[in-house]
Structures are given as structure tokens and as C-alpha cells.
């Protein structure tokens, strides 16, 4: 079977790929945030779940079985030819959490996008990353018309650890989102340095 390329002189560049997760409640602007910095229009990848992959739901006796499709939107930032960062928006619905485990595996860090009108929607994500020791930064999406709260009162409401950074951001704005991502990676760097120090001392 021909693949339409007879010879290739230049070897393929095999990039180091990294991922950052973007979590938060439904409709908080995860895909908007991904789109603001991605070099590609956010793509959608889907996974089809059957009852075999969903042991928690008891479908016994359910006659009409249905497919559940879980969508994850993602974007890509090529930092260098050999260094590519992917951003994955996590599924907003709580019931698809088991998918997060796979997404979270090997993730360099996470953004928890929060909306001050529905702060409780981000509790679950914060809890998830705290428990797994995944470095994360909370970004409060400043929606137009939403009341602005001082960062300290938002921190208090979210009960954040002192070292977790909280930023105000505009998920539509490239510079704003870049700052959020830098904050995530800087936090990851601090944690990586610390664990390195623990190992060597």
C-alpha cells in the first residue's frame, strides 16, 4: 500500500509534548481560554462510553441502551519545533470524573477556572488536584457584569492553600491567559525544585 512518499531525507522531529488541564464548572469559559492561546482552533476529541467502561452506573434491566459521548476540547501551543504544549479542557460534568484520571496522568499542571457567581462549581476541581498533588492555579474569569470581589475574599471562599496562586483573568484575552499559564508552570517548577531538593538532601 502506497503512502505517497517515496523517500524522506529529513528525519521527523519528535517533539516533547506536555499538557496542562483546564478545569472548572460547566460554562465557565474553559474552551474560550484554550482558544485564546491555541494556535489551532480548539479541536474536539470524543470518547464513547459503553456500560463496560461505566461500572458505577447500574444499567441492569435498562432496555434501551444509549451511548454516552464525552467531549474534551483541546488546543496546541508549539513553543519550539521540539516542544509542544497541549491544553485540555476537562469535561464539565461531574459524572465523567474517571476520565480525568487519564487526562491528569502526566499533566504538568492545571488551571481551575472559576466564576465568582458560581464559586462552588470549582470546588470539585480544586479538591481533585489538591488530592493528587497536581500543581494548579486558580484563575477567576472576570465576566462582564459579574461583581468583582477582592482576591482575598475569593481565596477564603475557596479555602486555598497559601501557596496556590489566584489570579484574575479574562479567558478571551491572550495575554491574560498567557499569564495564567506561566503562573501554573512556575508553580510546577517550585514544586519540582522542592521534590528534587528532598531527594538529594
Amino acid at each position, binding site marked *: 500500500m502506497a*503512502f505517497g512518499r517515496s523517500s524522506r531525507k529529513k528525519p521527523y522531529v519528535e*517533539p*516533547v*509534548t506536555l499538557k496542562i488541564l483546564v478545569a472548572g464548572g460547566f460554562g465557565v469559559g474553559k474552551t474560550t481560554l484554550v482558544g485564546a492561546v491555541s494556535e489551532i482552533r480548539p479541536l474536539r476529541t470524543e470518547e464513547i462510553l459503553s456500560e463496560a467502561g461505566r461500572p458505577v452506573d447500574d444499567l441492569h434491566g435498562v432496555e434501551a441502551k*444509549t451511548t454516552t459521548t464525552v467531549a474534551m476540547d*483541546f488546543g496546541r*501551543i508549539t513553543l519550539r519545533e521540539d516542544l509542544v504544549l497541549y491544553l485540555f479542557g476537562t469535561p464539565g460534568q461531574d459524572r465523567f470524573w474517571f476520565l480525568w484520571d487519564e487526562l491528569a496522568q502526566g499533566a504538568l499542571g492545571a488551571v481551575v477556572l472559576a466564576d465568582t457567581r458560581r464559586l462552588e462549581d470549582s470546588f470539585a476541581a480544586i479538591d481533585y488536584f489538591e488530592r493528587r498533588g497536581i500543581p494548579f492555579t486558580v484563575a477567576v474569569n472576570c465576566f462582564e457584569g459579574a461583581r468583582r470581589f477582592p482576591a482575598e475574599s475569593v481565596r477564603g471562599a475557596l479555602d486555598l492553600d497559601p501557596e496556590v496562586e489566584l489570579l484574575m483573568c479574562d479567558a478571551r484575552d491572550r495575554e491574560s491567559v498567557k499569564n495564567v499559564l506561566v503562573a501554573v508552570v512556575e508553580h510546577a517548577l517550585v514544586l519540582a525544585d522542592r521534590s528534587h531538593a528532598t531527594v538529594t538532601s
Partner: protein
Amino acid sequence: MSDAAERNQLNQGSTPGHHHWFDDEAGPVVRPYAMTRGRTSAATRHRLDLIAVVVPEPAADDPGRDQTLSPEHVEIVERCSEQPQSIAELAAGLDLPVGVVRVLVGDLVEDELVHVTRPVPPAELPDVSILREVINGLRAL
């Protein structure tokens, strides 16, 4: 392909003892998995990460090497020959569920037509120097 033929293929493709949910009612549920002949996991040892990159091997240029490949297999090789792509990008580009792409890429790995880069091992943070490069790269955007 008719539904009946598709279902038949699904049943044949599954291993004995593991096909109990490929019943008549389940047909539409697993339909995209007809492309994988009913297999839901790849032959490769490691589960392919969403950001694992698929890179063609020299053998991918060899015409007529494998007649058993499906059009989807061929399309994966073609897309990656343009530029190596991640599992997530392939799934989005081909409009196939991630699970299906994993199985198809697993076939191609077995066939030595492609290899797959392994991202940072699970439960390990990337190297500190890489993190610094990411920060610099983001700032320079």
C-alpha cells in the same frame, strides 16, 4: 456494510468470553469499534497517552507492504507523514473516538509502520529545565 454484517464482524473480532456485551442491542453502542474489529484495547503494552506523538517509520514509505490495513490505518499514516501528530489530534482530525484511534495506532506499531513517543512518565513531573523552557516559550508568544 449492513448492520448485520457489521455486528457479525464485531462478534468475530472479539475474543471468546469477552463478547458478552456485543449483543444485538449493543450494536449501535459500539458501532465505531467496527473499525477495530470489536477490539477496545490496543496490542501495545502501554496505553497510548492522548499526547503521545505518532511518528512514521521508514517502512511506512514501502508500498504494498501490508494489504490488511484499513483506510483508517492508511489515513493515520498519511496524516503523520505530513507531520507527526498526537493521538488527540488524530482522533479530532479523523473524527473518531480516542479509543478507536488507540487501537488503530496500536496495529500500526505492531506492524512497525509507526512508533509512538512516550510523554513524561506518569507520576513524574517533567524535568526542571523543560519547565523553564516552557515558561520562556510562553512568555515569548
